[in-house]
């Protein structure tokens, strides 16, 4: 079983080597089909019913996402704002002017740098903690229900609610600093320009962890027990088993977790908006989405906000593809 399938059909699974081929053939010869079944297959691929099954979702995507995204791309190369219905407004084409504005803005540079810091801390932390906790939970003899619920509670609670408590924990005279005593950082966590982003990365890891633990838990059920037995026979201890059996066994899920965590991180908004008062101190925790919100929604410039959004989407898209490549090539 391959760990991750590529975006294109054809190498999705071992049995599908001919999938792409038949599609391309029927597409390129373009003749009317001769017999019913083959015709359908020629038009829609080897499993025509797939079109039917995927159709509602495709329609949903087109109606709810394609429209705004295409509009965003359109806006990003025009001088655009949202006018009231019936108001005649000129939206001249401006080429890449909006992109130029966005890409030369030092605040934007800082925001992308901040996100890089966030991802470097948050993603490995998330993967490691989620896997360790899932394995521990899977082995727990008692109290599983309690622990599972405990891990999940932050995930189901709205960020707005948790932020209040975390401000209290990480504040200058908060609980964490009181525990650290003289070791407490000065300035404190959220107003320290080198600690603000790591603090947010930690908070987000903590908040999202429950969901990723659940993903790993489900994946652990698929790791064959025979493998553990075999490893055990070979004299491997728990720690060795973890690295030689568990880690490879949940690769698919690790890839999923990495990608989801990367995407969540790149779309960071609520936490800097609330936890560090709009990206403070002095922009040390601004994120691209926070800037988009300021530009597009607060300041009424959806055109430059869209340009920033498209840049972000492209960068994250590349990052996700890179992740997939890296994780696949390891197998």
């Amino acid at each position: 079983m391959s760990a991750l399938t590529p975006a294109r059909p054809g190498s999705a699974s071992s049995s599908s080597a001919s999938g792409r081929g038949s599609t391309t053939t029927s597409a390129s010869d373009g003749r009317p089909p001769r017999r019913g079944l083959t015709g359908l297959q020629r038009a829609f691929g080897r499993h025509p019913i797939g079109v039917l099954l995927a159709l509602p979702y495709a329609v949903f995507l087109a109606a709810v996402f394609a429209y705004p995204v295409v509009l965003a791309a359109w806006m990003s190369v025009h001088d655009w704002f949202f006018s009231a219905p019936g108001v005649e407004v000129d939206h001249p084409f401006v080429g890449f002017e909006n992109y130029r504005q966005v890409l030369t803005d030092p605040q934007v540079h800082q925001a992308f740098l901040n996100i890089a810091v966030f991802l470097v801390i948050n993603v490995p932390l998330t993967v490691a903690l989620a896997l360790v906790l899932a394995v521990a939970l899977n082995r727990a003899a008692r109290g599983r229900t309690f622990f599972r619920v405990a891990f999940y509670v932050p995930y189901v609670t709205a960020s707005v609610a948790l932020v209040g408590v975390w401000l209290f924990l990480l504040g200058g005279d908060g609980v964490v600093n009181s525990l650290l005593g003289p070791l407490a950082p000065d300035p404190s966590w959220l107003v320290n320009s080198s600690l603000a982003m790591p603090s947010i990365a930690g908070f987000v890891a903590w908040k999202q962890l429950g969901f990723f633990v659940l993903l790993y838990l489900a994946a652990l059920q698929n790791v064959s027990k025979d493998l553990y037995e075999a490893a055990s026979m070979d004299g491997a201890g728990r720690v060795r088993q973890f690295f030689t059996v568990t880690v490879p066994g949940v690769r698919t899920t690790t890839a999923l977790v990495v990608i989801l965590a990367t995407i969540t991180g790149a779309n960071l908004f609520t936490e800097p908006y609330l936890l560090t008062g709009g990206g403070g101190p002095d922009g040390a925790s601004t994120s691209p989405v926070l800037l988009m919100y300021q530009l597009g929604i607060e300041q009424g410039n959806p055109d430059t906000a869209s340009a920033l959004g498209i840049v972000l989407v492209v960068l994250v898209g590349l990052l996700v593809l890179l992740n997939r490549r890296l994780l696949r090539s390891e197998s």
Partner: protein
Amino acid sequence: MRTSARWGAVAAAVLLTATTAACGGGQGPGNPQGRGPITIWLSNNEQEVAWGEEQVKAWNAAHPDQRVTAQQIPAGKSSEEVIGAAIAAGTTPCLIYNTSPAAVPQFVKQGGLVPLDTMPGGEDYITQRTGQAAEQYRSPDGHFYQLPWKSNPVMVIYNKTLFAKAGLDPEDPQLSTYDDVLAASEKIVSSGAAPSAIWPSPASQFFQSWFDMYPLYAAASGGQQLVVDGEAQVDSQAALDAAGFWRQMYAKDLSPKEAYTGDAFADGKAAMAMVGPWAVSVYGKDVDWGVVPVPTPNGEPADQVHTFSDAKNVSLPVACQDQATAWDFLQFTTSADADRALLTETGQMPMRADVARTYADWFASPDGAPYAPFAQQAARTVEVPNVKNSVEIWQDVRNAWTGSVIFGKEPVDSALRDANGEVQHLLEVP
């Protein structure tokens, strides 16, 4: 590949729908002579809702054919987003009793608001009710797209108990010059009366400057806006003075650089706060407080100090179908009687030419007395400039402020000079 060709076609079709949906179609602008049932938006502040519902009830009893329905939108920062989105979608109500003056230029640019001076008697109604102060709400094209409704003039409130603890005179505190406030602040903190002297939000949202920088700037400049005759004043002497004062407050740890969860003044973590008259009902019972005008560099007499108005106004969106009813209802709810009800029920200052004298009887009563200083101050308020790119301008100011004044990462002078250049650019771009 045909596959991508087909998806390309889908995308093109979607794009077509998108442009038609966003450019034209929808219902046209409403009818200035129209009469009929209308919907209005109130802020979700409890007292304001109660006031609004009384007004609606009284109106509906007299006008059964032009019934008004009230709905609530958030009082705080998200209301501008909601209004902006509703204008774009054509789903605005007929009156919005929660319009921030800083957002009006944006709504006007969207083509979303009716110029109220084009309604019958509109110009006179606004200028006579509000007086000279109304001019601050006139847009650059000469129209009134907002009715100046109520203000919350910002003043300095102080905790008498904590002042006494710090060895300061609680009945006659010396807080009129910057040096006075700094000296008092140092005493408050060094005596341990409170961990901080005054705790404005150090956060980076664009509107935060209205509650630390702008009131002091308005006072130091003798009542000028941030933009004077098209010239940005971000690095003017008044702005530099105000910034210098706050820089010292932060540098000496008299004001914390960190946001407080909750209300620092109510919790006794700060001995002073910058507040509007809403504070009377919030702190009234729990804190023994006094109130003074914001400080100035040289200590202007209290009856000459200006401050930021923190006003909320009423606007009439173009999508309203029955604009004549809306205009009548707007006048009905801003009459002398309706304003009296607003004042006595919410404590906010109706933007009338002379609030203190018009309602002198109430300010002399035990209920109204705590509000009297705010009514005096209401005569000298400064609004945010009514210019394009308003929100963006305030964000630039705020960014410079957090970097230099709050965190001291760069000199105040150069930070404000750079910000002034950016603001000037935003004022001049076509």
